[in-house]
């Protein structure tokens, strides 16, 4: 029996990967329901390794490229790519972004109009990352829980895990050296006047914005990156920056309804990449930072390889002989 502490993204994804290899799994979640206390609730749900490479290490691509396929087996994944645009006066940002990334094609104004008619006439150039995708984080957490149940994972809600477990996925609550919180703030908007169908990144020297469609003309916008452990609700400054950026993307967002705002603490290590760490007899998966949905599949696979090496060896031999 493999025991896991924490029913957030890392814990659930690991439970699924381990259970897929035939091991019995018991997962303890301190909260009353899955997702209630997980920072993944506030995630964008972008599966965008090539865009993330702009400010992240190469590993986001090598680890993240398989994420869309992995998630496709769990929850609906929208494979419509990412469109990166910049206001006319900030075109230099687009040049810089293109220099730091790959796997995109340059699109002009009329191509943008075809990709996203709602943005027609608003941007004269952009970058289109066709291979990228997005999902709905809360739906994905629920679907992940279902998948875990389906594989026979025993999920114990409202119960703190015993002191020693096989795998600790308690995020920022874990006591790990070098782990730090990075605060992120987001908002969810309903905008019946605007139909955008794929993730949009609006580059801006001060307040870069991403917008991820949630369906039914509901959009998540985010997100700030603040080196802080504060869990208070978003500040007016952050929200005003984000909402202004949404307005820049399309003026009709002025009439959007703000359905929700939220703030969460992303756990991160100094290189902003996730790690598997042995500590006090437990294996820890932590530090998913702003790449939870992107890197959880690869890291969960690593967890399973570590905790159930025999299966890995068997699989490995099979694939070799095949």
């Amino acid at each position, binding site marked *: 029996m493999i025991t896991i502490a924490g029913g957030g993204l890392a814990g659930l994804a690991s439970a699924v990967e381990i259970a897929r290899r035939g091991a019995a799994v018991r997962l303890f979640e301190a909260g009353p329901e899955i997702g209630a206390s997980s920072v993944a609730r506030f995630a964008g749900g972008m599966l965008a390794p090539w865009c993330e490479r702009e400010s992240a290490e190469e590993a986001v691509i090598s680890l993240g490229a398989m994420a869309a396929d992995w998630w496709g087996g769990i929850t609906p994944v929208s494979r419509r790519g990412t469109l990166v645009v910049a206001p006319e006066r900030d075109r230099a940002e687009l040049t810089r972004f293109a220099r730091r990334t790959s796997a995109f094609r340059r699109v002009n104004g009329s191509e943008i109009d075809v990709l996203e008619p709602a943005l027609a006439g608003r941007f004269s150039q952009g970058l289109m990352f066709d291979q990228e995708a997005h999902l709905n984080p809360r739906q994905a957490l629920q679907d992940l829980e279902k998948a875990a149940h389906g594989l026979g994972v025993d999920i114990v809600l409202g119960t703190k895990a015993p002191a020693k477990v096989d795998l600790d996925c308690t995020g920022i609550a874990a006591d790990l050296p070098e782990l730090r*919180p990075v*605060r992120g703030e987001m908002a969810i908007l309903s905008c019946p006047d605007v139909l955008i169908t794929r993730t949009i990144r609006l580059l801006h020297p001060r307040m870069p914005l991403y917008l991820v469609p949630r369906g039914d003309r509901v959009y998540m916008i985010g997100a700030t990156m*603040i080196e*802080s452990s*504060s869990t208070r609700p978003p500040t007016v400054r952050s929200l005003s920056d984000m909402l202004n950026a949404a307005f820049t993307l399309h003026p009709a967002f002025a009439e959007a309804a703000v359905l929700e705002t939220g703030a969460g603490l992303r756990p991160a290590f100094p290189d902003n990449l996730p790690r598997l760490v042995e500590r006090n007899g437990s294996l820890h998966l932590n530090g998913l930072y702003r790449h939870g949905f992107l890197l959880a599949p690869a890291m969960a696979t690593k967890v399973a390889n570590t905790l159930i090496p025999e299966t890995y060896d068997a699989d490995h031999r099979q694939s070799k002989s095949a």
Partner: protein
Amino acid sequence: MQLYGTEISSRLLLGTAQYPSPAILTQAIEASGCEIVTVSLRRETADGSGAGFWDVLRATGKHILPNTAGCHSVAEAVTTAHMAREIFGTRWIKLEIIGHADNLAPDVFALVEAARVLSEDGFQVFPYTTDDLVVGEKLLTAGCEVLMPWGAPIGSGQGLRTPDALRAMRAHFPETLLIVDAGIGRPSDAVQAMELGMDAVLLNTAVAKAGDPVGMARAMSLALDAGRAGRRADPMEPRDMAVPSTPVLGLAELG
């Protein structure tokens, strides 16, 4: 140079915001050879602990110069300065009071007032100011021993927009430490600042947003050394007439 009685040999002060990761920040700090790093405090950090990121900065062993980035009033800046003193146990404060939303120009009126209030309270103030001589004088009267004129708007990377004004500042305040703060984009800008006789340069975005922040940190450090060495070597004055650098005497006479 002596900054409020502390001997500092590196001429680079490095900002710590906007790096791809704390790991790269730490490497950039090392590569830059700087002895002072700046850190901005926001209110969010007050009710949280600011936590891990400050540990990263403390672990570098550098002097920490907290700043009041993002403050728009005297009261806000003073509160932030007190917070910083408590958190980092330093009397140093980089005083930054933003007066204009578009170019982030300092509000020099609020700046002088806040500098006076903080100096009287025992702070050692590093004021982010314009290249205006009158403002500079008032800041010195308010208790500052250092002036930090901008080279260009914060984060713009435009280089030194008004080198003549900086030259005038150098002439007008011969004994005051002058640190160019904001606007440096490339190593050549840093060279120019030092050639103009500035004592040091404070920069952040130019390194943090470079494709290779560690490489750029090293380049900036070299640039500062080059500019300073050049100034001390008393460079020649430009002239209109070409002067051959090969000797004209002793040329072989042909035929």
